[in-house]
């Protein structure tokens, strides 16, 4: 349990397509993302930008009608999970990679108690000491403010949405996986519980020396817990870098718009300016040029024809034709 091996993750040129009536359309188009061992990375972006698709790809679990059509997902100790199949893939899921599903409120079998499902999990991964697994589960639930014994004896319908999400988090951590992926893990919780749970996720992350990926559409959450932050738009990672830098001096026009759209906690609501327009859906993502150009204040001629490639600027990666030129924007202090 004390042996800590935080895996690094390298997503390269990952393309995921969904079959639609008009053919296969890309939900992820050549995404690259590196998770440094031992860090917490956040992914933010509007709904439909491909966050869940990317998170599922880390387990090679993109669901039909979708499929990974290109690229690789290298995880230390597992190799390229895109190539994993059968029992190797099954064992990696749960044991090596813990996953908290976006709809964690509905992630339990309604006909079995939480405890029975925990035992199913243990047996599926050949856990020898099942009583120890139960103790571990009770302890994790206890840390998240629940009565572990009672929860293990409960059916899903006897638990509130927030309790179910915590059970989902417990199930992702209980096998001591070293890579943990949480897709919007706290959406059903009130602000205070949400903060508590994230603090605990962070604590467990430190204690066990994990590599963690948190998907969220809440920039406040990302600022609070992540070391590194990736911003997604239209199936691309448009900006990625240390969280403080990305929030403190955003460089991609979309990141800037996203940050400007948050009402300040201690300030004039009127200062928040919503991003004009709507995010693209699979069918409306332009086939060429920059995916953000319809909403971009810095749009240039080249943006209509050439999809900007991600380029590194120190620790930061940004995909925008306008970056590299001097930018002059008000830096928002509250996230620094």
């Amino acid at each position, binding site marked *: 349990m004390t042996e800590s091996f935080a895996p690094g993750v390298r997503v390269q040129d990952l393309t995921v397509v969904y079959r639609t009536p008009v053919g296969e359309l890309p939900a992820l188009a050549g995404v690259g993302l590196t998770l440094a061992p031992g860090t917490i990375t956040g992914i933010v972006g509007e709904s439909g930008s491909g966050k869940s698709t990317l998170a599922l790809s880390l*387990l090679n*679990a993109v*669901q039909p009608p979708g499929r990974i059509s290109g690229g690789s997902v290298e995880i230390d100790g597992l190799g390229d999970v895109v190539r994993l199949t059968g029992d190797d893939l*099954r*064992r*990696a*899921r*749960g*044991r090596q990679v813990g*996953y908290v*599903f976006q*709809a*964690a409120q*509905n*992630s*339990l*079998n*309604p*006909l*079995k*108690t939480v405890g029975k499902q925990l035992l*199913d*999990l243990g*047996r*599926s*991964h050949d856990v020898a000491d099942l009583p120890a697994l139960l103790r571990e589960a009770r302890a994790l639930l206890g840390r998240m403010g629940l009565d572990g014994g009672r929860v293990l004896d409960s*059916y899903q*319908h*006897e638990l509130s949405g927030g309790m179910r999400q915590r059970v*989902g988090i417990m*199930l*992702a951590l209980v096998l001591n996986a070293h890579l943990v992926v949480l897709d919007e893990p706290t959406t059903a919780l009130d602000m205070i519980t949400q903060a508590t749970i994230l603090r605990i996720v962070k604590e467990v992350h430190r204690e066990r020396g994990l590599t963690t990926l948190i998907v969220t559409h809440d920039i406040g959450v990302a600022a609070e817990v992540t070391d590194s932050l990736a911003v997604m738009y239209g199936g691309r990672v448009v900006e990625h870098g240390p969280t403080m830098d990305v929030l403190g001096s955003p460089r991609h026009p979309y990141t800037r718009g996203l940050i400007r759209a948050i009402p300040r906690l201690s300030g004039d609501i009127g200062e928040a300016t919503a991003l004009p327009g709507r995010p693209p859906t699979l069918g409306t993502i332009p086939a060429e040029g920059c995916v953000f150009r319809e909403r971009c204040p810095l749009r240039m001629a080249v943006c209509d024809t050439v999809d900007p490639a991600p380029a590194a600027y120190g620790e930061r990666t940004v995909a925008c034709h306008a970056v590299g030129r001097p930018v002059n924007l008000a830096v928002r202090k509250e996230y620094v």
Partner: protein
Amino acid sequence: MNTVIRRLTGHLARGIAMIWVVTTISFVIIRNIPGDPVRGQYEKLIEQGMGPDQAERATAALYGFLPTGSLWDQYTGYLNGLIHGDLGQSLSTPGTGVATLIGSAAKWTVLPVLGGTLLSFLLGVTLGVYAAIKRSGKLGDALAISGSLLHGVPQYVIGLLVTAIFTTLWPILPAGGPVDISFEPGFNAAYIVSLVQHATLPVLTYALASYGGWILAMKSSVATVLGDDFILAAELRGLKRSVLFRYIARNAILPLFTILALSLGMLFGGAIFIETIFNYPGLGLLLVNSIGARDYALMGGTFLVITVAIVVANIAADLLYAVIDPRVRTGGAA
């Protein structure tokens, strides 16, 4: 436990209401038979020299209610008789109570119907899971197609087909009747073998007639469950295939219990075709014969028993449901 009792009470209340409607309809039919045979019987007995009291009692024994008196008195008298288990006398088999006839016919219906239904339920459900999971495979397609085809064929056509196959083309089974009368009834091998041989074709027909429906129902139920979030979540946790299979099967089978209950009840009525084809002396044949003989008391009694069977099947299914589904047991939201 409270919820179960509440649901059970609801079922009982609805069941009793249903039984009441059926008995009232029976009463109205018998009371309004053209030519008023009830009254006619009474007058005939008086003409034959019976005293009015005696004639009244004799007629009442035959039809289940008094030939004289107001409609209301006749009606309450009829219901009162039913409550005390008196279904009246059969006209077509003089001297025999309707209850006795139904009792001896019921055993010939219950066993084949139960056997056939459970057999096809188990087969259809197992193959339905397979057909849903192997959607793209050849065998999965074949199963789904066989299901749709069989589902569309009426019971009596299947009955005639299996008769043609197993008694004419490849004559290995008896064509009709409940048992070979040359054997001594009782617990001896020859008699039991004969019973089983005679029951095989009716059971097979029941099974084939409903098997297609089960495959289709189970297939669509499994497809629904496969789309549920918790199945994806279980996959993402790396649960073994066998565990996943149990999660899917158990959740998918739940809604089928309601259909099972209904179809069991319906089958008692559907037994009409199959029992006629195989000359099998069950409730269906009894009903057909009673209609042919204008034996109204027997008709009413048979309807009543079929109704009761439907009610009982419903209640049994509900109890079974409560055993399997914890949400019903503890009264949570579904």
